[in-house]
């Protein structure tokens, strides 16, 4: 990985090439490796090394952007010229105020682990073999992916912004399958690969698969559900995608529109974003180089705030960026990448024991929004769906389709677990979501998978 000094030097030299009124240079470099296994063997094993510059220039209120991964001086010069040429041919953007200026320092964060950065193909293969071995012992089939790597992000602009951070990430996903349609799941990721326990995860996935053997059909309808953190994280990801950003509010398409200060979920629900917390995968600054501010989005069910980048903040008097910009240019607006949901005092055991009849869901699959303004989503259950009867897991059930407003679901939460888990967020390489398990009443299942 390129050292911070070299990266910032390259970015400053790029800034010097621009004659625009304002210029921003975003650098993204990665050295990523991924080993995939299925049917109890490694079938795909890949490596990628890349580095690119994205240049945003401002001429008055005209904006042009160009990016390249050709980092020789001539190519960089050409890319700056291309961005300026685009800006010259642009129309004024009346909503644009300015690129952000340097105000305050971003928090230091421990995001790099040398051991994870230098993980070898042999080390990844060894872990894959361990996972496969556990599956074989249980006469099961293991599939999954193990990735390790480094990402470096740096931003400078002509108003004094200067930020650079390197991140490592190790991630392991395991699906354990039996021949009769049953499957189990385990997923974990961390900045430090040694914090992931592949064997323990392999046993979790296998145990769930065995427990779900001979799945039965169950009629769609309203059920009490116990959702593992994977499924809860999926719901939060969609809240972030659909409505926790300022642009969605400004365009009138967020479920938060006109609801700030009002109750939109149950009182037991509090959600916030904190890119500085070591509990998540910290992102101390955003893609404009602005320090991340912890933001409470929902407190005791009351809608509190959305997140801003410099552009959306510029459109509202008295508002400043909260440090949630995505790489420019983007039409999506700012999003929270480090969501947290407040934990409770229950546990999965109590949730199951207190359920007379319900469905236990490990995770969702292929979830998509149906009515964004009401946060209605649809998707399938996957890799561990069980019928709960009389306080016990009775048997596995074939996957079910749900169609459900997330806000309505979060208004019907009866128990929240004390334990939380870090699960993937909106971005695969940066950030993450920290969530508990939930017990939810009256969850809508609208279809079921037929036997294959």
């Amino acid at each position, binding site marked *: 990985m390129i050292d911070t000094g070299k990266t910032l030097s390259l970015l400053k030299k790029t800034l010097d090439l621009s004659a625009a009124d304002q210029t921003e240079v975003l650098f993204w470099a990665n050295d990523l490796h*991924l*080993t*995939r*296994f299925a*049917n*109890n*063997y*490694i*079938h*795909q*094993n*890949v*490596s*990628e*090394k*890349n580095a*690119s510059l994205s240049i945003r220039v401002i001429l008055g209120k005209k904006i*042009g*952007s*160009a*990016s*390249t991964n*050709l980092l020789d001086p001539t190519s960089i010069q050409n890319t700056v010229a291309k961005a300026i040429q*685009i800006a010259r*041919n*642009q129309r*004024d*953007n*009346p*909503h644009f105020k300015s690129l952000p200026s340097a105000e305050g320092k971003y928090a230091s964060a421990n995001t790099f682990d040398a051991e994870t950065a230098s993980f070898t*193909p*042999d080390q*990844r293969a*060894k872990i894959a073999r361990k996972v496969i071995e556990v599956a074989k012992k249980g006469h099961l*089939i293991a599939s999954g992916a193990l*990735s390790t790597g480094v990402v470096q992000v740096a931003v400078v602009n002509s108003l004094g912004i200067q930020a650079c951070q390197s991140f490592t990430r190790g991630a392991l*996903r*395991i699906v354990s399958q039996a021949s009769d349609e049953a499957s189990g799941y385990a997923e974990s990721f961390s900045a430090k690969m040694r914090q992931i326990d592949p064997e323990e995860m392999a046993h979790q996935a296998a145990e769930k698969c065995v427990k779900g053997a001979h799945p039965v059909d169950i009629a769609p309808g309203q059920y009490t559900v116990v959702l593992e953190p994977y499924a809860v994280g999926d719901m939060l990801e969609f809240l972030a995608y659909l409505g926790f950003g300022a642009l969605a509010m400004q*365009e*009138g*398409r967020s479920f938060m*529109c*006109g609801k700030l200060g009002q109750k939109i979920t149950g009182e037991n629900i509090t959600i916030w974003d904190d890119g500085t917390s070591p509990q998540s995968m910290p992102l101390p600054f955003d893609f404009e180089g602005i320090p991340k501010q912890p933001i409470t989005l929902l407190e005791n069910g009351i809608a509190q705030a959305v997140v801003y980048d410099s552009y959306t903040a510029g459109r509202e008097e008295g508002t400043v960026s909260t440090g949630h910009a995505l790489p420019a*240019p983007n039409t999506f607006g700012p999003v929270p990448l480090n969501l947290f949901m407040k934990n409770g005092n229950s546990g999965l055991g109590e949730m199951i024991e207190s359920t007379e009849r319900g469905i236990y869901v490990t995770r969702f*699959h*292929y979830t998509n*929004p*149906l009515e964004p*303004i009401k946060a*209605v989503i*649809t*998707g*399938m259950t996957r890799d561990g769906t069980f019928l709960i009867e009389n306080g016990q897991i009775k048997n596995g059930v074939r996957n079910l*389709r749900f*169609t459900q407003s997330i806000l309505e679901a979060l208004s019907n939460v009866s128990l929240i677990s004390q334990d939380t888990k870090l699960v993937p967020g909106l971005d695969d390489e940066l950030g993450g979501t920290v969530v508990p398990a939930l017990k939810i009443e009256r969850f809508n299942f*609208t*279809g079921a*998978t*037929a036997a*294959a």
Partner: protein
Amino acid sequence: MRDLTSIALNLAKLKGASYADIRIVNQKQESLEVKNGSPEQIKYSESLGFGVRVIVDGAWGFASSSRLEKKEIERVTQLAVRIARASATAKIADVVLSPLEPVQANYKTPLVQDPFEVSITQKLDLLLKAEALLRKEQQVKVARGSMTAWKEEKTFASTEGSFIQQQILHCGAGIMATAVQDGDVQVRSYPNSFRGNFASNGYEFIESLQLTENAERVASEAVQLLSADRCLSEVTTVIIDGSQLALQVHESCGHPIELDRVFGTEASYAGTSFLTTDKLGNFKYGSPIVNIVADAITEGGLGTFGFDDEGVLAQRVQIVKDGIFVGYLTSRETAAKLGITSGGAMRADGWNRIPLIRMINVSLEPGDWGLEDMIADTDEGLYLETNKSWSIDEKRLNFQFGTEIAWEIKGGKRGRMLKNPTYTSITPQFWGSCDAIANRNYWKMWGTPNCGKGEPMQVMHTGHGASPARFRDIQVGVMK
């Protein structure tokens, strides 16, 4: 280029590779987007690099880099070999590739005008004009227009002696009106949702879309939807327009015929497939009028090219014949397991990704109905148009789609507009209920530029030809 490709191929062989290939790829992209009278973004990006794929000790290894220079090619080739040796420590059997004759060839997307040569001003003018027409309706709060072009220049060379150079160009555009009133939000898009329609073609394709000619109708429909009745929950007949049916083919046929999914290698992420190999040649996928083909040769399709990323010639494969499932999308490795040759469906979304089995142009062949005749022949049902949401299970059986708009059909006539329509079914039941497909006059190629698959994620451009078709006894309006 040959001097660069030979560095990797010679070194791979020297290090013990039984097979190796290298792809050198340069991709350019230009995107324009306007919103509410202002340019939202114009961006240009370029990415150059190479990827080396090897088989060593009977297992795959792949490594890639953005630094296209001799020393880096050597480093990356050696890394690919090292990775393959690691893969071989967890193999069940050696990789076997179906046979392929080496090829020396060139291919270029046929086109009249390169969109990268058209001035930004001209492109902006077209988008701003169409977008302004959307805002003639006061309740349209967000009006958007967008245009994207991609150019890919790639060189493929293999240790079997192939050397292929291709230049592939894709482009497209679209407009979208978002109407808002009293907490309701309704969207209409043209010519399709999710940024429009796309083709392997030049700027002439964008000009043919007639964005300005359709803008006022689209805006008016978005506003009308605000006061339209909600789609009821019932079992009824549906006639689905070509653009939505193209996505239906994509999700419920295109993905389950990917032979890597069938063999389980996507199990942990995208999922598997209900179309297992025991069903090949005997499974009733749809009614006898349903015929589906996969091809990389239809002019204008986003799955159209000269050769796939294993150097296999573009071809046409029958997938469903008279309702019976008869074919797969294949790679050299998966085809060998079935004892056939590759159908040429291996595609990578860039230099830094390994080729996977991806859709090419997977299309529903036209039937013999006129659309008006089909509607006139329908006593009761819904006409559904333009995708709004999609979801399907990991075996590609249980799906649910939402469309932007529906019209009630009563007594053979299209009647009142309905909002928030959805429909859901099980794949073979759904296609089995198809009793009418519109003829070639209504058949059109639709481009899907956002198909995701694989780890690391790869976004592929796929084509889907379809004309409107009718399906009986379908559950609609799942939300009460």
